[in-house]
């Protein structure tokens, strides 16, 4: 999911905490106070991002056998310390939940069309992506 409103951790975690999933692993990405950075603006190619997130989710379920994968990514203006992304994987066993959660956030950062612009004391700058 892509959302321009604050991410509700309780809601996204709560939906994975069920009797059939003994292990839930969550990754929470937070806007970090890097030197000079005052905030972030996040932009997404929403339709393509949602398609890619769906593919990544299916891959994680097929590879690791987890029972649920939920992802929410923020867009818009974010302050330092705000939640920018949440990945939650539910599984009957913890090893697979950890692996799936790490896989999803790694692939999200590599593949999902989302960009960040940092507000710094010297002005704004786009965060450079790694891969092309």
């Amino acid at each position, binding site marked *: 999911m892509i959302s321009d409103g604050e991410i509700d951790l309780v809601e996204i975690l709560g939906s994975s905490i069920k009797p059939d999933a003994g292990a839930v692993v969550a990754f929470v990405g937070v806007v970090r106070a890097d030197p000079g950075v005052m905030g972030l603006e996040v932009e997404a190619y929403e*339709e393509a991002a949602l398609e890619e997130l769906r593919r990544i989710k299916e891959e994680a379920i097929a590879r690791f056998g987890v029972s649920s994968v939920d992802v929410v990514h923020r867009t818009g203006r974010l302050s330092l310390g705000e939640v920018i992304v949440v990945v939650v994987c539910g599984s009957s066993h913890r090893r697979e939940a950890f692996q799936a959660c790490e896989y999803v956030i790694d692939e999200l950062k590599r593949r999902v069309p*989302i*960009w960040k612009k940092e507000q710094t004391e010297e002005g704004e700058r*786009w965060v450079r*992506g790694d891969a*092309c």
Partner: protein
Amino acid sequence: MRIKIRAFAGFREILGKEMIVEIGSGSKVADLINHLCEIKPELRGALFSDAGELRDYFMIMLNRRRLDLPEDLNADLSDNDEVAIFPPVAGG
């Protein structure tokens, strides 16, 4: 034919968020890019080096499928296609 252009991050700042361009039927991705560079001359420097070679710091999606560049510069366009231009992703 009408092509919807969408641009993100630095390319949005050059091209605007979204626009419709009219190009001749039978046009390929390369023709569209040339057309866009004519409308928005700033785009040329973002896509090509001074020697006229394609830079590798951007991606193009055609109807939300990523193109392999430079080979897919030859891909055919159709009426109502959506072409998106953006830099490497940096989400999360």
